[in-house]
C-alpha cells in the first residue's frame, strides 16, 4: 500500500509537472528552454532584447515579442539560419548578425547591417530648410527581420512627413498619439504585416522601426522636415547630424540614452539604447547628401570644414552643394556655412497668409550701432567637461579655447574655472581677480586637466551658478562640453532654477555634439551657443565669442507690430540680442496691410531702436512651412517649460499642438502599415543597427562594457595634475 501510494504520488507529480509545463509553454512558448545551450553572452543578449521590447510593447503583444528571443537563439545556434547572403561582400550591402562572428578576425571585419544607405536632399529658401531623408533598409538574411535604428535629426526639425516605400508603392504614415501608434505597429508586426514606426526619444534623437522585412527585400522610409537655419557671425549655417554620440546617464536613471557595444542589447538599462561598432569594425552604411541653396541673392562664400563637398553655382543665387562620395561615412555632423552679401543682411520677415489668418517667422538681427558700445567688467566662470567622452582631441580643443578666453580677460574682471567629470572641482574657492599672475596660474590649471570618468554635469551647473552674484559684475558662464549626457531635462531645469541673473554661453566641442542640450542651455541661460568641430580653429571661434561679449547685449526687447495683430509669438519673451547673433521669432498674425515694425531695447543704459517695413499681402510664402516652424517653436517652448514646471499638463498641450499640426513630438509618433499583404510566419528577428562612435570620440572611454550597465562611465583618471 505504501509503495502504491508512493508510485501514485510520483505519477501525480509527473502529470502535474507535465500539465504545468504545457500551460507555461502555451503562454510563453518553449523559447526559454531552447535558449539553454547558448553561451552566457548570447543569453544576456536575448534576455536584454526581450526586456527592452517589453517596455515598448503593448501588453497584448507580449507573447509574440517573446518569440523573438527564440529566433535570436536559433540564429546563433543554427549555422546558416541567419547568415548573411552573398551581398555581405558587396560594399554598402548587408545586415547585422546578432552575435559577433567567430574567428580570429572578428575585431577587424565588416559588420553587415540592415541599414544600407541614407539619402539626404535639402532645399534652402531664405533661411528655411526643407529636408527629405530616405533610409534604405535591406534584409540579406534567410529569415525575416525587424530593423531598429536610433538616429539623430536637427533639434529644431519640424517633422511633418513620413512615407514607407515598398518597391514602387508609397504609403503615407499617419501621425498618432505615441502609445496608440506603438500599439498599432506591434499588432501589425505580430500579424506579419510590413509596418514602420517613428518615435522621438529626445528632440534630436529618434527611433525608426521597420517590421517584417523579408529575406532579400528592401523597405525604404522617407522623412520630411523643415527648420530655420542659424546665423552666426555673418554666416548662415545648415547642419545635418549623422550619428548619436555615446551618452552618460547618472546612476539610477532609466529613461536616458544608453551606449552599448554591438550585440549587447539591453545592458545599459536605459529606455533608449544605441549600439556602437567596436574599434576596427565597419558597416556598409553610407550617406549621400545634397543641398540646394536659393537665398534670393548671390551666395558669396561657402565653407564646409566637416566634410569634403562639391560646389556648383557660387556667386549666383542658385548654389548646389553635394557631399563627396569619398566622405560618405556617417560619423560626424555635416556643417555647411554660407555667406551672402553683407550689406544685404537685414531683418527679414517671412509671412504666410491663409485667409485672414497668417503665420510669420522672422530673424531679428541686432542693430549695427550696438557694436560701438563697450561692456562693463564681468565675472567669467569657465566650465570644462573632463569626462571620458572628451578624451583625445575634444579635450585638447576645449583647453586651447579656454586658455585663449582666459587670456582675453581685462583688468577689473574676475574669473573661476570649474572642471567636471564624476565630480566638479574649482580652480579657486571663489572667483578671483583677473590679474596677470592669476591668469597665468589659471592657464597652468587648465594645462593640467585630463579627461576620464563620467559626466555628472548637474554638479557643474550648480557649482557654476551657486556662488552669490557679484554686485559689480555680470556673471558669464561658459560651458565647454560635447553634451553627451542622457539627463538633458534635469540639466535644463537646473539652469532655469539657478541662473540668478547670470548668462550662460555653451560651446559644443567635437564632431557630433548634443546640439539640443547646448542650444537649450544657451537659450534658457540668456546667452548664445557656438560649436567647435574637430577641423575648426578653436582660437578663431573663441575670439569671435570674446568680441561678442565685449559689447553689451540688447535687453528688454519690445516689438511694436504696427498694423499687424500678432498673437502666440514664440519664444514668448524675446531673448537678449548679442552682436553677430540674431534670433528667430515665429507667431500668428491678422492683417494684410503694409506696415512698419519697430524693435527697441536697452544696451549699456542706452535705448536702441530699429525699424523695418513689412508687407504681408505681398511677401506671403507659397508653402506651409511657416505654420510647421511656428508649431515646432511652440512645442519647444512647452518642452522647455516642462523641465521646470510640472504644475500643468504640458504633455497634453504638446500632444494637442503636435496632432493639430501633424508634427512629430515626444508624445506623438508616425506609423505606417501595409495592410494589403501579410508576410509568412511570425515577425522574425529584431536587429538593431549599430553605428560608429563619432569621429574623434574614443570607444574605450565612452561605450559601456557589459559590467557597467546603466552608465557610460569609464575609469576616472582625471583631475588637475
Amino acid at each position, binding site marked *: 500500500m505504501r509503495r502504491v501510494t508512493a508510485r501514485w504520488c510520483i505519477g501525480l507529480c509527473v502529470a502535474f509537472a507535465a500539465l504545468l509545463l504545457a*500551460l507555461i509553454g502555451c*503562454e510563453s512558448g518553449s523559447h526559454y528552454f531552447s535558449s539553454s545551450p547558448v553561451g552566457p553572452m548570447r543569453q544576456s543578449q536575448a534576455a536584454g532584447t526581450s526586456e527592452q521590447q517589453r517596455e515598448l510593447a503593448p501588453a497584448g503583444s507580449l507573447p509574440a515579442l517573446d518569440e523573438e528571443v527564440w529566433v535570436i537563439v536559433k540564429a546563433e545556434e543554427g549555422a546558416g539560419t541567419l547568415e548573411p547572403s552573398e551581398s555581405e561582400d558587396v560594399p554598402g550591402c548587408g545586415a547585422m548578425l546578432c552575435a559577433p562572428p567567430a574567428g580570429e578576425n572578428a575585431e577587424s571585419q565588416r559588420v553587415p547591417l540592415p541599414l544600407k544607405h541614407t539619402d539626404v536632399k535639402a532645399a534652402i529658401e531664405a533661411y528655411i530648410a526643407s529636408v527629405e531623408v530616405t533610409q534604405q533598409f535591406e534584409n540579406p538574411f534567410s529569415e525575416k527581420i525587424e530593423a531598429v535604428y536610433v538616429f539623430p535629426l536637427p533639434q529644431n526639425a519640424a517633422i511633418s512627413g513620413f512615407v514607407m516605400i515598398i518597391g514602387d508603392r508609397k*504609403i503615407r504614415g*499617419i501621425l498618432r498619439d505615441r502609445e496608440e501608434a506603438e500599439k498599432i505597429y506591434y499588432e501589425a508586426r505580430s500579424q506579419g504585416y510590413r509596418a514602420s514606426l517613428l518615435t522621438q526619444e529626445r528632440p534630436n534623437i529618434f527611433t525608426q522601426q521597420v517590421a517584417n522585412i523579408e529575406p532579400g527585400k528592401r523597405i525604404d522610409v522617407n522623412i520630411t522636415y523643415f527648420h530655420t537655419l542659424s546665423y552666426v557671425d555673418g554666416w548662415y549655417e545648415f547642419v545635418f547630424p549623422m550619428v548619436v554620440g555615446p551618452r552618460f546617464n547618472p546612476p539610477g536613471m532609466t529613461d536616458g540614452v544608453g551606449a552599448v557595444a554591438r550585440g549587447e542589447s539591453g545592458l545599459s538599462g536605459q529606455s533608449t539604447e544605441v549600439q556602437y561598432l567596436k574599434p576596427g569594425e565597419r558597416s556598409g552604411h553610407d550617406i549621400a547628401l545634397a543641398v540646394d541653396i536659393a537665398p534670393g541673392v548671390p551666395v558669396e562664400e561657402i565653407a564646409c570644414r566637416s566634410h569634403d563637398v562639391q560646389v556648383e553655382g557660387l556667386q549666383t543665387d542658385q548654389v548646389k552643394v553635394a557631399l563627396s562620395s569619398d566622405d560618405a561615412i556617417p560619423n560626424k555632423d555635416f556643417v555647411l556655412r554660407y555667406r551672402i552679401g553683407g550689406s544685404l543682411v537685414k531683418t527679414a520677415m517671412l509671412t504666410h497668409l491663409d485667409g485672414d489668418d497668417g503665420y510669420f517667422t522672422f530673424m531679428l538681427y541686432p542693430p549695427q550701432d550696438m557694436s560701438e558700445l563697450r561692456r562693463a567688467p564681468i565675472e567669467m566662470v569657465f566650465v570644462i567637461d573632463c569626462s571620458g567622452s572628451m578624451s583625445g582631441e575634444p579635450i585638447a580643443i576645449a583647453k586651447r579655447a579656454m586658455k585663449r578666453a582666459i587670456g582675453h580677460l581685462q583688468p577689473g574682471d574676475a574669473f573661476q574655472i570649474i572642471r567636471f567629470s564624476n565630480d566638479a572641482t574649482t580652480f579657486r574657492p571663489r572667483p578671483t581677480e583677473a590679474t596677470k599672475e592669476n591668469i597665468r596660474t589659471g592657464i597652468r590649471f587648465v594645462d593640467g586637466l585630463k579627461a576620464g570618468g563620467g559626466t555628472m554635469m548637474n554638479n557643474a551647473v550648480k557649482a557654476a551658478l551657486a556662488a552669490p552674484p557679484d554686485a559689480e559684475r555680470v556673471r558669464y558662464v561658459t560651458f565647454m562640453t560635447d553634451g553627451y549626457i542622457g539627463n538633458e531635462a534635469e540639466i535644463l531645469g537646473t539652469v532655469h532654477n539657478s541662473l540668478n541673473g547670470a548668462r550662460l554661453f555653451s560651446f559644443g566641442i567635437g564632431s557630433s555634439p548634443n546640439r539640443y542640450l547646448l542650444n537649450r542651455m544657451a537659450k534658457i541661460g540668456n546667452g548664445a551657443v557656438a560649436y567647435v568641430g574637430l577641423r575648426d580653429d578653436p582660437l578663431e571661434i573663441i575670439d569671435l565669442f570674446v568680441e561678442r561679449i565685449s559689447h553689451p547685449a540688447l535687453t528688454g526687447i519690445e516689438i511694436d507690430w504696427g498694423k499687424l495683430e500678432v498673437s502666440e509669438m514664440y519664444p514668448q519673451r524675446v531673448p537678449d540680442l548679442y552682436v553677430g547673433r540674431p534670433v528667430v521669432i515665429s507667431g500668428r498674425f491678422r492683417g494684410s496691410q503694409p506696415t512698419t515694425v519697430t524693435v527697441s531695447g536697452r544696451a549699456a543704459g542706452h535705448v536702441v531702436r530699429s525699424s523695418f517695413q513689412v508687407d504681408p499681402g505681398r511677401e506671403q510664402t507659397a508653402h506651409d512651412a511657416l505654420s510647421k516652424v511656428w508649431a515646432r517653436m511652440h512645442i519647444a517652448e512647452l518642452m522647455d517649460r516642462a523641465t521646470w514646471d510640472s504644475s500643468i499638463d504640458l504633455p497634453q498641450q504638446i500632444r494637442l499642438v503636435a496632432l493639430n499640426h501633424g508634427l512629430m513630438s515626444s508624445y506623438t509618433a508616425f506609423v505606417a502599415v501595409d495592410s494589403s499583404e501579410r508576410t509568412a510566419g511570425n515577425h522574425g528577428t529584431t536587429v538593431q543597427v549599430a553605428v560608429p562612435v563619432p569621429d574623434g570620440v574614443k570607444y574605450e572611454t565612452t561605450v559601456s562594457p557589459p559590467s557597467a550597465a546603466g552608465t557610460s562611465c569609464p575609469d576616472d583618471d582625471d583631475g588637475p595634475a
Partner: protein
Amino acid sequence: MKRGMMMTCGLLSMLLLAALCERGFAIRQAEPPARFETVSVFVETGEAPLAAWQLDISATAGTVRIVGIEGGDHPAYSEPPYYDPLAMQQDRVIIAAFSLNGPEALPSGRTRVATIHVQIPGDVEPEFEAKIDAAADHDGEFIDAEVVLQIGTDK
C-alpha cells in the same frame, strides 16, 4: 517520504491552480485581435480628365483606425495624398491631390486615386461614407464626379 511527496503534490497543485487562474483571467480579458484591411478609393468622372480632387471619408459603423494612405493607380496620382491632421484625430480622413499634367496625362472614367490602410478592432464590420468635396479638370473647372469605396484590394 510520503509526507514529502504529499507536500510536493500540494505545491504543484497550487502552482497549477495559479497558472490556470492566470490563464483563465487572460482568456476573459482577451479582445479579438484587431485586423488590418485596405479600402480602395475610386473616383468616376466620365469623360472628364481629373486634375484635382478632395474627398472626405469616415466610418459610419464600427471602429476604424487609419494606419496608412497609399497613392493611386494612375501616374498622375501615384504619390500618396496628403491628409488633414485635424480630421484624422476623429479617424475621419480628408485627402486631396492635384496634378499639373495636361488632359492627355490625366485619368478619366473610373480610376483608383488612393488606398486607405485601416485597422479594424473588434468584430463589427465597418461601414464607410465617402463624399467628394471637389473635383476639377485641367482648366480648373469643377466637374461632376462620384466616389466609390471598395473594401479589400486586388493588388
